[in-house]
């Protein structure tokens, strides 16, 4: 189901905890490292949803999306640190500066795109100062002023002193922020050649690069292409997904969303990289489509050019994840030496 269609159904905000826990356990069983929990007005709060699922699981991690700018950094660090003590630090943060001015205004945030990134820079600098855990935090910036800040609940994890910080976005501002405050720049997929050309500056600084995309993997190339076409064809039959997505894109100030929508002028960017669902399902629906062997090779190709993390999704999510875990992932693991972290949304 497309994002626009989901948003139109008020039920999308009601978490089905049993189903989510079952999905998380299936992810654990299929070798998936973490689950992305998105942020948006149409969804439950991701920190608290991760808390609930985290209390019912023991291994799988979470990538908790955080819309910067809506909370005091002190209060945010306190929530994050509290969660870390409860689930042993099993999560990363996906920092999103926002993609729709209208949605931002509904949360009380009136800043334009670049200023949101500037504010996020201050926000994360403050968070990281708290995570250093070496005394009081004092900060006087353009967006935040914190005096003698302290949080008595530390970040707890067996391996880290602060959570991994995945910075979402395609703009120059997002890349700068990834390098200055993040641990990984998380961007949407494109062809391996263009991704290679675009990520060099970030990768050279030692910041990881991650790709977000969908997967349509089937035993054969032909089956995968048919499945992909069926997904695109189904859009619009019960809901005008394309019109809704057009309206969304017309009002977004997200560089990644606009970029991918431009790419979608061409349906097949390579024999494996497909944009056919973008216009109905949104930019994150840019997909790798193909046989087990083709998907595995494409992932490894991205790996060779410097991508080390993937946030993956599918339609339906559980079936695609299970197929991916059973067939694609073992082939990738067999062939890779580089670190690879696939993550279905």
């Amino acid at each position: 189901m497309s994002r626009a269609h989901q948003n139109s159904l008020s039920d999308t905000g009601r978490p089905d905890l049993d189903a989510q826990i079952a999905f998380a356990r299936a992810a654990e069983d299929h070798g998936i490292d973490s689950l992305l929990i998105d942020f948006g007005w149409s969804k439950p709060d991701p920190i608290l949803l991760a808390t609930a699922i985290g209390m019912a699981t023991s291994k799988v991690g979470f990538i908790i999306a955080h819309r910067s700018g809506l909370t005091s950094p002190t209060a945010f660090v306190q929530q994050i640190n509290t969660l870390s003590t409860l689930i042993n630090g099993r999560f990363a943060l996906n920092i999103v500066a926002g993609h729709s001015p209208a949605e931002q205004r509904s949360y009380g945030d009136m800043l334009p795109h670049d200023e949101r990134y500037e504010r996020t820079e201050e926000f994360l600098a403050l968070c990281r100062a708290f995570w250093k855990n070496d005394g009081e935090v004092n900060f006087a910036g353009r967006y935040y002023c914190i005096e003698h800040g302290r949080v008595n609940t530390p970040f707890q994890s067996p391996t880290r002193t602060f959570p991994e910080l995945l910075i979402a976005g395609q703009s120059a501002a997002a890349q700068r922020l990834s390098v200055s405050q993040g641990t990984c720049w998380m961007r949407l997929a494109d062809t391996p050649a263009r991704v290679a050309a675009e990520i060099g500056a970030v990768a050279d600084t030692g910041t990881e690069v991650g790709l977000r995309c969908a997967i349509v993997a089937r035993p054969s190339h032909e089956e995968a292409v048919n499945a992909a076409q069926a997904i695109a064809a189904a859009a619009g039959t019960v809901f005008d997904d394309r019109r809704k997505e057009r309206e969304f894109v017309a009002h977004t100030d997200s560089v990644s969303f606009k970029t991918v929508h431009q790419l979608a002028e061409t349906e097949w960017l390579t024999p494996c990289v497909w944009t056919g669902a973008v216009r109905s399902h949104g930019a994150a629906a840019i997909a790798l489509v193909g046989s087990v062997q083709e998907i595995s090779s494409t992932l490894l190709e991205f790996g060779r050019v410097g991508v080390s993390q993937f946030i993956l999704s599918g339609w339906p999510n559980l079936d695609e994840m299970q197929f991916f875990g059973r067939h694609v992932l073992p082939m990738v693991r067999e062939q890779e030496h580089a670190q690879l972290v696939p993550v279905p949304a």
Partner: protein
Amino acid sequence: MSSAGAQHRGATARASQSGVPDIAAHVAFCRRADECGMDSLLTAFGFHRPDPIVLASALAMLTERITFMVAVRSGVSSPTALVQQVNTVAALTGGRICLNIVAGHTPAEQRAYGDFLSHDERYERTDEFLTICRSLWSGDGPTTFNGKYYTIDSARLNTPFVSRERTQPEIFLGGNSLAAEQLAMKHADCLWRLPDTPERLRPRVATLVDRGVEVGLLVSVIARPTREEAVDAAYRMIESLGAKPIVTHRDFASSSDSVAFTSTYKLADETASGWLSPYLWSGAVPYLGAPAIALVGSADDVASAIIEYRDIGITQFLFMGWPDIEEMTFFSQAVEPLVRAKEAGAALRMAVSSW
């Protein structure tokens, strides 16, 4: 109630208290509170504690019935984002959440959260904050608001407040100031007050009750089989704490702009004997802070005291004790049945917190 397991947490400076939750102790406390028939359990807010809504969400996954009274320090997050968090907990737990809205009590702590407003401005902002939250809960279409502190444009959320009985959480508000009373009349179901004698509380309580707002008492309890044992336990407790906490609390009192806290410290200072009435004891306040003002006595004394407060219009209680789990257990076995036998009309509602 983030002190579960730590008996006299309030005796040490906040800066040196641990903020790491002992989840096993918390769960044990929650389950006992459930067995003791407590309606709800407060998770308090402060830089020295775990985050209350995250902690409540985790504890709710491990318990069945009890409602969590989650403290919300207004002004540290977007009202839309806060409602989204509260509704998420409600949706995950079938509505086992109510809110204790606190406008802050210490300017220094507020500044640590990035908030530089004065006492009365904090209440003004909380008024705007709750206006927006309640509009989102009303479900009457998108919320738009243009105020001094918040501008919200067409806000809506897909996660509703899910509960069998309510369409929005029960809202408690803490404070003894006039600003707190006015805010409660506008937005809250119940105002928490720190105690004074029933005679002195009566006029303020009547004003609120006449306006349809419940008044609750935030009070500690030291109940024992006999009055002598209770008084002895009270005195032994402060003796065991030594003199150091007095300095800690004098420092805290001088930095607080909370009328509830400073007036209770003052009340304790002015009451040389420590006894405001035969059962209302302020002797622990200099050692454990304003909420340590306590009902002390036999089960019958404490039950009678509760009924006296009920007679002036108080309908809810938020109790603390030391050690919390033992005091709560004795209370539910010995005191509560006496209260239930004596009360007439609607049952008093009881919540619990440890300090």
